[in-house]
């Protein structure tokens, strides 16, 4: 038992790294075929697609990080912050495709904003011919990515918050006359960013390689590289598989280059901050504009996501809804009624995969952390990188190969799909649990042992109950990640396991906003429910324990 526990961290890392490495090799193999590279280079859209991948990725990550940090620096502790957090936490679980479709309907020339202003303010009786969606510079894609990533970064930052003694640092700096923003930047940001670095890298990698969001919001002449690669991979004549593999390889190189660039910028920023801090710049004048920016950014992200989803919800019950009507001309439950018979099994599949993968991930994460605790293991930097590997390596560069390997091994069906989900769910579960676990006062364990408790009793009777809230939150995060999986579900189940997300994305190719609305709502509702339970459970259980209050 003890030896098994000791092996868990290594086995878990292998569980992360082996599928990624094997899938990568199998996907990129065809890139070496003669002609593959030259076919890629012959594509006229290549230079702009590469630029788009870089610019949208870097710009959206920078903006999302900036908004997150501004919110933390200037709004933490205010009522606006509490409200923002309550609204954003459930939005974390909204799948990318649903969020993108909601935003697309909001900002399109025939979308909700234009409808609300037409014709009285704009004079438009028909939708104007404006290239707002799919703009060639990728602005709408960038904004969509920002909206989707701010909630993620914010929650990741809050998970790291307890480890860095932020309140006392901030108070100290402010008693020395530093403005709120400067105090945050000089005393909290450096240790906070150290915890936030890998999540930021994952955001950058995702932003550069997202297929669903790129398809819905991104430019289409040429599209971002990832969308084009996905297009080649599914091209009818099958003649483009070498090109697709070469494109995937280029995509991987681009992500690595962008990460290197980002690392350089990190170092420069750190030097800049240190310089400013030692120069004693108090910068109290920054606070008012920073707070304004944070409020504006936070409000825009929240309002954009919520209004987009509300639009989809309205579409799900809309009859005819022509431009420029701000509201549908008639309401009907026909879409829901038509979808109802298939919703049961699809929701069942979604639940089965999400409960299974989040549950397994939680058990593995607990086992890893317990092994770390009992055998005094120090989590090494390479181990942490391995854990993040599935989130940083673009999905499009390893999932197709993984699918082929799964077939060769004769694996398939529910188990293989569940395992695939686990690869993506585990990092999030581990990363959301580990900070709280490691922050738990180690003297509790010493005390329990000095009172004669076995390691098992100390775990079950003391440490797990103390960590109930973060445990349930980690589970809910894992659940939400699993619900949002598209490519992994589609490829590893061979299309045989339909989930709310695979249905929604396949419907999105048909542009039926009514049915997309139904699925997007359910996609959001399931994780929101689990998050609510994760908050409510401990609150009820510990209603008479003030020391357990959040």
């Amino acid at each position, binding site marked *: 038992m003890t030896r098994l526990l000791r092996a868990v961290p290594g086995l878990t890392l292998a569980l992360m790294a082996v599928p990624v490495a094997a899938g990568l090799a199998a996907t990129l193999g065809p890139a070496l075929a003669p002609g593959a590279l030259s076919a890629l280079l012959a594509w006229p859209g290549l230079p702009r697609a590469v630029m788009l991948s870089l610019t949208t990725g870097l710009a959206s990550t920078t903006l999302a990080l900036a908004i997150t940090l501004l919110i933390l620096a200037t709004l933490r502790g205010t009522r606006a912050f509490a409200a923002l957090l309550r609204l954003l936490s459930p939005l974390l679980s909204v799948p990318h495709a649903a969020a993108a479709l909601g935003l697309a309907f909001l900002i399109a020339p025939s979308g909700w904003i234009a409808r609300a202003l037409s014709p009285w303010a704009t004079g438009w009786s028909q939708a104007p011919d404006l290239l707002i969606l*799919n703009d060639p510079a990728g602005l709408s894609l960038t904004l969509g990515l920002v909206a989707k990533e701010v909630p993620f970064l914010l929650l990741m930052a809050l998970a790291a918050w307890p480890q860095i003694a932020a309140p006392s640092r901030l108070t100290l700096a402010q008693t020395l006359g530093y403005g709120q923003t400067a105090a945050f930047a000089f005393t909290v940001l450096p240790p906070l960013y150290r915890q936030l670095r890998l999540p930021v890298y994952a955001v950058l990698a995702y932003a550069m390689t997202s297929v669903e969001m790129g398809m819905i919001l991104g430019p289409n002449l040429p599209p971002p590289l990832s969308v084009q690669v996905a297009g080649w991979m599914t091209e009818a004549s099958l003649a483009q598989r070498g090109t697709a593999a070469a494109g995937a390889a280029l995509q991987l190189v681009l992500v690595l280059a962008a990460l290197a660039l980002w690392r350089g910028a990190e170092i420069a920023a750190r030097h800049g901050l240190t310089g400013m801090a030692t120069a004693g710049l108090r910068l109290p004048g920054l606070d008012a504009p920073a707070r304004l920016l944070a409020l504006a950014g936070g409000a825009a992200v929240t309002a954009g996501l919520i209004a987009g989803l509300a639009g989809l919800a309205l579409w799900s019950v809309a009859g005819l809804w022509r431009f420029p009507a701000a509201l549908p001309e008639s309401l009907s439950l026909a879409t829901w009624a038509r979808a109802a018979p298939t919703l049961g099994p699809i929701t069942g599949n979604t639940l089965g995969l999400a409960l299974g993968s989040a549950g397994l991930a939680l058990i593995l994460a607990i086992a890893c952390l317990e092994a770390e605790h009992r055998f005094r293991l120090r989590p090494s930097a390479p181990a942490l990188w391995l854990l993040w590997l599935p989130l940083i390596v673009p999905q499009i560069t390893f999932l197709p190969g993984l699918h082929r390997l799964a077939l060769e091994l004769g694996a398939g069906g529910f188990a293989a799909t569940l395992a695939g989900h686990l690869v993506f769910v585990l990092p999030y579960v581990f990363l959301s649990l580990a900070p709280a676990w490691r922050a738990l006062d180690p003297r509790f364990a010493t005390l329990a042992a000095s009172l004669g408790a076995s390691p098992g009793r100390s775990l079950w009777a003391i440490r797990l109950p103390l960590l109930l809230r973060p445990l349930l939150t980690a589970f809910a995060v894992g659940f939400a990640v699993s619900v949002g999986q598209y490519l992994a579900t589609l490829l590893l189940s061979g299309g045989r396991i339909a989930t709310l997300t695979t*249905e929604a994305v396949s419907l999105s190719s048909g542009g039926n906003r009514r049915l997309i609305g139904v699925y997007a709502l359910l996609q959001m509702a399931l994780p929101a429910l689990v998050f609510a339970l994760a908050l409510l459970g401990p609150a009820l259980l510990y209603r008479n324990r003030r020391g357990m209050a959040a």
Partner: protein
Amino acid sequence: MDRRTFSRLMLASAALPALPRAARAVVEWDGITDIARGQTVWWHAWGGDPKINDFITWVGELALERYGVTLNQVKIASTADSVAAVLAERDAGKTTGGSVDLIWINGENFAAMKREGLLYGPFVENLPNWPLVDMAGKPAVMTDFTLPTEGYESPWAMAQLVFEYDSARLTDPPRTIEELKDWILANPGRFTFPKPPDYLGVTFLKQVLYGTMPDPSVLQRPANPATFRRRVAPLRDFLATVRDALWREGRAYPENEAALGQLLADGEIDISFAFNPGRASAEIAAGTLPDTIRTYTLKGGTIGNASFVAIPFNSGAKEGAQVIANLLLSPEVQARAQDATVLGFQTVLNLAALTEEDRARFAMLDLGLATLPPDKIGPALLEPHASWATALADDWTALYGSGD
């Protein structure tokens, strides 16, 4: 294969030499339906249209009730995904029990699967309902993009390109490619087409070629790289002339037919088109398009083709899949598919070959508000050779794909 199935097959084959051809087919078919009972068929069919999904669900109920075959639709975003899946399975050595049992297919996807040896067959001529198919009147049921189907795919719906417009906004839509060009130039921003290599987008390019080429018959032969530039010069001229007057000044294009239809529903464009003469009526019936939408075709005809189902070589339920293919050809299912409130797909059957009762099923159908009656829809032009689709998509991508 269990022992019961095996002995039944042996019995069937032992009886073969003694029987005339028609009777032999009956015996074989009985064996097939016997084996099919209890099988589960995974049908990979584009899942972007809830009307089609509902129709497939209905077919599944029928199949279970009558033949004990369970039909599951795998709702795919692109047929090529499924083709790639079968190819991956073959590469991985999975020659039995594959994930795809039946696939909705035509054109390039069929050509690719046939070329790669990924299809089971020929099976089509053994289907009991095959003699009802209108082989003489609808040659497209046996020729898919000039490629003979050779019994490897079974037709289940006829499709023809029709244009859609809002009669409340537009009284006299353009009826030739030349008129369309003038109309686009006169109404900038109100027309577009799905981005090639999307199927409907490429079909539009072919339609323009048909309308502008001096001799469209060359389209029936493989595209010749040596003469390609000269052949497509009129198409290139057309595109160069209208480009700046397209929706979004030709800097963005809808992804597919459904996205194009959504633009019409949102009032972003005035003329749309679809590869389904009944689409507009069905959308009106579903309340998603205004009842002022009408359809029309071009003088000289529009491109038409058939939709097929095929069975991958490694399907684990080939018998069940054949039962479904046959069921799709039954007059009952064909009539329901043609109903404008259901799908509005045109039938592949020869109405004259049907019984009185079955003919009545079709006669009873209401065409819907926007569907052209059979005598008004005009001639269906043959699909060009499959190589044209690739060549046209590549040429368009080279010219416009970089967005410059």
